[in-house]
């Protein structure tokens, strides 16, 4: 979604966004018809996906729970605030606009932030969460400003 200016995959990311927007806006009956035209059975596919999901969640649940517990414990030790609570969408948009104004201090998000007015609420929240995750692994704007 955001991509960095030095990300060679950026053109493909943009094309992907373009296609995804169409997928999300295609009416149900057209999506179903496309799959049937290709020889697929939408209901069988849905059942398959649900089964796959249930199985994979059961398998990974134990490990994920352990990792989550370790993460919470580490956050407590470091006195780090929990990343997520209720998010105000106006605050999130304001934060993106500030990033945009910061220019090259935040190359990974500047481009996306520049288009803030064109982004849906979900996209804005996704960008903010992505920023938090990048900061967490040392790639975020704060890190680059230092």
């Amino acid at each position, binding site marked *: *979604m*955001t*991509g*960095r200016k*030095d990300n*060679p*995959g950026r*053109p*493909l*990311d943009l*094309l*992907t*966004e*373009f*296609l*995804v*927007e*169409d*997928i*999300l806006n*295609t009416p*149900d009956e057209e*999506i*179903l018809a*496309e*799959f049937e035209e290709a020889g697929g059975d*939408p*209901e069988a*596919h*849905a059942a398959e*996906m*649900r089964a*796959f*999901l249930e199985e*994979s*969640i059961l398998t*990974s649940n134990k490990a*994920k729970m352990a990792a*989550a517990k370790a993460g919470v414990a580490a956050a407590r030790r470091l006195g780090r605030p929990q*990343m*997520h*609570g*209720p*998010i105000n*969408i106006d605050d999130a948009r304001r934060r993106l606009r500030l990033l945009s104004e910061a220019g090259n201090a935040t190359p990974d998000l500047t*481009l996306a932030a520049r*288009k803030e007015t*064109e982004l*849906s*609420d*979900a*996209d804005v*929240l*996704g960008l903010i*969460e*992505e920023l938090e995750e*990048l900061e967490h*692994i*040392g*790639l975020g704007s704060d890190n680059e400003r230092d």
Partner: protein
Amino acid sequence: MGEVSSQEAAGPRDQTEIAQAISSLTAADWLRLRKVSHLYARRDMSAKDVLQEAIARALEGSRVWPKGVDFVRFLVGVMSSIANVEYEKAKLRPTLVMIDGEKGGGETVDYPDPTAGPEDQAIQRQQVVRIRSAVLSLFEDDQIARDLVEGTMEELTAEELRELLGLDETAYNSKRRYIRRRIDKHFPGGWQS
């Protein structure tokens, strides 16, 4: 899309609501998620992995699904984020490197390999050039579609493209659907196919 997704309110959802939303996903929703997951699949992460990870993050609460936001759109945002963050993490992935020990024996140490990033970028650049050329060749018979694809890949916004190509919103959406279907047929498994 799903029944739960149309609810409007403020604040994040709890795990029960997310589980309900998953079980309320329709056959069309699953197909949308399948198509999108194929587009976000990466060399190290299959389409199913991307979708599974997005749902797992929603259930764990590491990604917040705010009320008032469609659930499928939310999952798509998470998949996009996973694909982007995976790319950044790949550049920092530690590599085992041999160094000389005091007794002359080799030791292996984990640290980010400074050459891993450029190599990865070179591979990705080649892949983008290959896909770009393949995609553009699909629209040799339709200059507007070709311009739309090319302009999108060159950072032009939808509004800029509509103005440049003289398309109103309906014509733009119709052309975008035509492009998406044609690309779907030639890249049924996404960019990795």
